């Protein structure tokens, strides 16, 4: 079993005002046309107009999230940079596809091609922080962030690194919304985020989010401890429960020890049963929280749950807007995240308060 790791710093850029104050705001923006789009950070605080001109949307967001996360951790050169993204820079990919058509395979600007490369952001972060180190990018839908974390855990376990910058980045574009809309990813009816979780119809609302974390081997100044994770691809429903049980047992815990559970409910009634059956294991004392009605659905939305967990454990409080079912625990010590991405990629995270 891999040693636990500690989350030292945690940053989130989402549709909500989560970035500037690094906290969940009191008021939330609603989805427009079933999409929760980024509230973009003040890029000019970080880059010149000339620099920004060459950076696409997700590159800018990823850079500022990584910069602030490292600053929070008082770290200048991370010893590993590992990211996950389901779709990478969709804007650049689309732009280059269109350029090829428009200019009939003539002389093209290479910038969108370069930035469409899934590991382009990793390289840029390394460049910006003059960090020559282990560096890789996982691109497996609802497991993208999880593989990045698992890889970092192995590095920290082996002592190959003392710390690692781990993150995920995702964007939605108008074109990609249409592609996924036709495949049934989004609700047919226009819906407010406040009604999402009670909708009882197929589909969800599109979201986007970029999350960065500094993971470290030692507990000093950490926000929360990540004890372990489980990944299950297209499992039977009972396997999710069994693996959660195994994860708890391996850490000397039982269901009843959970103070908070974050569930990835996305309002899609084709997958609600995974969450309701999972929740039936839980004690009435355990708080049940949801998060996708705040950030929307995307491949790496579990990053938002991880960011929320780091903050709620550190600050020992959470927003009532997250509540699915209120429990009674005052002390928020043991947290389990259960997310699935359209029923295919199921991820479990067990986190604990440090000490």
């Amino acid at each position: 079993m891999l040693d636990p790791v500690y989350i030292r710093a945690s940053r989130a850029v989402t549709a909500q005002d989560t970035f500037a104050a690094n906290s969940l705001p009191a008021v939330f923006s609603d989805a427009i046309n079933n999409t929760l789009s980024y509230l973009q950070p003040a890029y000019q605080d970080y880059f010149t107009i000339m620099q920004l001109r060459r950076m696409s949307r997700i590159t800018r967001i990823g850079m500022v999230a990584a910069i602030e996360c490292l600053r929070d951790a008082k770290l200048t050169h991370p010893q590993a940079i590992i990211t996950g993204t389901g779709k990478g820079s969709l804007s650049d990919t689309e732009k280059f596809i269109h350029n090829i058509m428009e200019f009939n395979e003539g002389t093209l600007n290479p910038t969108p091609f370069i930035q469409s490369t899934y590991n382009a952001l990793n390289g840029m972060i390394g460049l910006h922080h003059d960090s020559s180190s282990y560096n890789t990018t996982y691109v497996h839908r609802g497991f993208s962030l999880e593989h990045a974390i698992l890889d970092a855990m192995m590095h920290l376990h082996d002592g190959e690194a003392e710390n690692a910058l781990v993150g995920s980045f995702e964007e939605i574009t108008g074109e990609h919304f249409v592609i996924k809309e036709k495949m049934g990813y989004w609700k047919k009816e226009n819906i407010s985020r406040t009604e999402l979780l009670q909708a009882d119809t197929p589909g969800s609302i599109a979201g986007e989010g970029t999350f960065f974390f500094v993971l470290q081997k030692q507990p000093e100044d950490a926000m929360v401890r990540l004890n372990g994770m489980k990944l299950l691809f297209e499992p039977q429903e009972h396997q999710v429960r069994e693996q959660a049980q195994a994860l708890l047992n391996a850490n000397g815990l039982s269901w009843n020890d959970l103070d908070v559970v974050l569930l990835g409910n996305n309002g899609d009634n084709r997958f609600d049963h995974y969450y309701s059956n999972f929740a039936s294991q839980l004690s009435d004392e355990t708080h049940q929280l949801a998060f996708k009605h705040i950030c929307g659905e995307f491949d790496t939305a579990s990053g938002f749950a991880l960011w929320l967990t780091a903050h709620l454990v550190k600050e020992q409080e959470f927003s009532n807007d997250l509540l699915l079912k209120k429990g009674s625990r005052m002390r928020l010590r043991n947290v389990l995240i259960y997310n699935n991405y359209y029923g295919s990629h199921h991820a479990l995270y067990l986190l604990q308060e440090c000490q």
Partner: protein
Amino acid sequence: MCKVYVTGMGVVSALGLGKEENRSALLARKSGIGHAKYLNSSLVDKLPVAEVPFNTTAMLPLLHRQENLQQSRLVVLAALAIQEALCDRLGPSGKPSPLTGFINATTVGGMGDVEDVYDSLINPGIRDNLGAGDALDCAAGTEQLARHFGFTQFVSTISTACSSSANAIMYGARLIRHGIIDRAICGGVDTLTRFTLNGFNSLKNIDKQPCRPFDANRNGLNLGEGAAYLVLESEKSINITGATPLAILSGYCNFNEAFHPTAPSPEGEGAYHAMKGAIEAAGLETGSISWINAHGTATINNDEAEGAALLRLFGKEMPAFSSTKSFTGHTLAAAGAIEAVFSIMSIRHGEIYPVLHFNDPMPGLDLVPVTEVKTGIPVNHVLSNSFGFGGNNASLLFSKYA
């Protein structure tokens, strides 16, 4: 920490389907670089590529169970290579199978299937080709293959440009060493697409002639397509499968160089540390290396940087080195795995494959690659390099299984 054994391998490239066809072409110095027949691009007459010499429907019947797979070139190339890799290691039947992971790598996934229908995909009124919408990400092919071969217990996809499958092999090995899985099918696949051909063309690093790795007059790379996969196993897994190791994955290192988004530093800092790290991880000295299957894309920048790194690391005791990209083209995410297969073939058969079209050494770098096939020689340790955009450098070290 346990050792990681290679117990199976399969390959598809412009040189042919399977290890034997690939090896024969390498020994006959027969390159796969030419003009594309199947790629739908107006550049095919201008820019040579290394295309797998069959159309997708002709290859489909070669798969044992084709009915579950979509007619995607990406998936078919990968499935052929995986099928071959698994045939190598069919152990005694009736035993429980070890916990197996599938770690795939690709740079553009199903782009080849998507780019021809993109206009209709983004048109809300057209509902054809809906499935292609999923192929726009890298994991779509991985998941089809995982279901087809029954590797659904643990799946992952990596995309780090030209070093993707080297990183997939590394991730598989690390997962095995940590006991998270017992066996891993690791490798990568990419098909020729208009997207990548125009991408590299926009960077002005495609040669209009067959590429000339490490030559003074080299003028860029040729793109290729293909797939290759290794079966990696722990000793525990081998006890279950009864597989015989073909080689040992004795070392590996990933070292990202913070220098430039698409070009290496002229001193090859990243390449140097990746190679050095892999040799040190294996507990070997530089003098033990029998052959270096270099990244050797034949771009101006890569070969100069890699050459400088080779000289810095090996000095006057330069092992035999060459680049098989002069045969297969640069197959992007598949390159690391294809070259891993060639490295292991070299160890198994005691032979070294040459570079083609080499005439003059690069100015200021006293480096002459192997230009003729060498056979009947002991090959004990082979270093295989894969370097990519973003400064991503990965080196794998394969050693003879005694």
